[in-house]
């Protein structure tokens, strides 16, 4: 199992692996927003948590079609399916590798980008916490979408259309927690709901992903 995770991480940092792609996209989106809405710091500070969350979500979306499609194209998915590793473990590891290469860098860089959007200082911690808690759900849900569309050539757009509605609850509670934190209110309720969504998807979705993968590999 470690072997698969190590391979995916190594592939991500090799040429064409896409590591940093999501991060660069996130950076550009957050830099573009002040150009779009104007330089009023008060307005920017108010929308900063939401912009950071939407930026992180779109950056995550960008790399979803790499999770399984590349392995399907070169035949390794078939070979992995006949390996001793259960498919449930395979999709969980794929989601974990995606989170480490895409979600985790977004979490770490978000407070720095908060500065660009004049996010109040008390909001830094909460954007970090809410993204750290929410991005694993984005990776796990994304892996489910990737499993659904694995046999389809150029399935990236379809994947986005399938996955974006499923991201709505995570976005609502994640952005709400970050917004409340930035404005100095209690964040306990949205964070609890966000944690519930994340742990729920981590516990249940790998079974669904493995089931659809089994059908798609036929």
């Amino acid at each position: 199992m470690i072997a698969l995770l190590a391979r995916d991480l190594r592939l991500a940092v090799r040429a064409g692996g896409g590591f940093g792609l999501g991060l660069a996209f996130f950076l550009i989106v957050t830099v573009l927003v002040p150009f779009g809405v104007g330089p009023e710091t008060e307005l920017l500070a108010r929308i900063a948590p939401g912009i950071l969350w939407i930026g992180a979500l779109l950056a995550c979306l960008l790399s979803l079609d790499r999770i399984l499609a590349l392995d399907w194209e070169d035949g390794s998915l078939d070979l992995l399916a006949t390996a001793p590793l259960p498919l449930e473990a395979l999709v969980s590891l794929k989601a974990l590798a995606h989170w480490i290469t895409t979600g985790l860098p977004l979490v770490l860089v978000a407070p720095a980008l908060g500065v660009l959007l004049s996010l109040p200082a008390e909001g830094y911690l909460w954007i970090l916490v809410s993204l750290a808690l929410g991005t694993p759900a984005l990776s796990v849900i994304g892996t489910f979408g990737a499993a659904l569309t694995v046999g389809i050539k150029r399935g990236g757009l379809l994947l986005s259309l399938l996955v974006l509605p499923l991201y709505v609850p995570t976005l609502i509670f994640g952005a709400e927690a970050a917004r409340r934190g930035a404005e100095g209110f209690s964040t306990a309720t949205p964070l609890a709901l966000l944690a519930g969504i994340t742990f729920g998807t981590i516990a249940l979705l790998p079974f669904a992903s493995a089931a659809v993968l089994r059908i798609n590999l036929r």
Partner: protein
Amino acid sequence: MLLSVHDLAVARGGVPVLEGLSFALAPGEALILRGPNGSGKTTLLRTVAGLQPPLAGRIDAASDAIAYAAHADGLKATLTVTENLTFWARVFGTGDIAPALAAFALADLADRPAGALSAGQKRRLGLARLLVTGRPVWALDEPTVSLDTAAVGLFADAVRAHLARGGAALIATHIDLGLEARHFDVAACKASPRAAAEDEAFL
């Protein structure tokens, strides 16, 4: 018996392609599957490998008995030959990749990225993977595609060594490998068109 198949029927995309297949493989035996293009050899091998469920009939084999090799080699272009092979060795829980490199004359290419290999070299690397799986039954789908005569010889030697170790092989191929093996023509088991009409997907 390492693998035995009883009255098996297989389908591709819901359409039955083969039915009434029965054969068995004992340790040391190889079975060569013959048949024209599109006759269902790949579908049969995928079913035996467990990638798709049989339409009818039974496949008796240990769940961890079969090593499958398809048309695609499952190689990562940016990983080196050694890294690719080590990955599969670790996935299958076996250790040493040196015998596999030696058997397919890949030792000189060990540090080359797989993307820089020729088609035949990639194929050899894909076949070397079989040796690191440590599994007794090889299910091979046209293993000699893009191999030159010398490499076909290496492959035939590897299969012979595998059979001598008590393994078995089920090989779909169009060329003569020079193996002492039984031949099985799948065209004789072609599914009747009537079976298609009874399939649920078409009701």
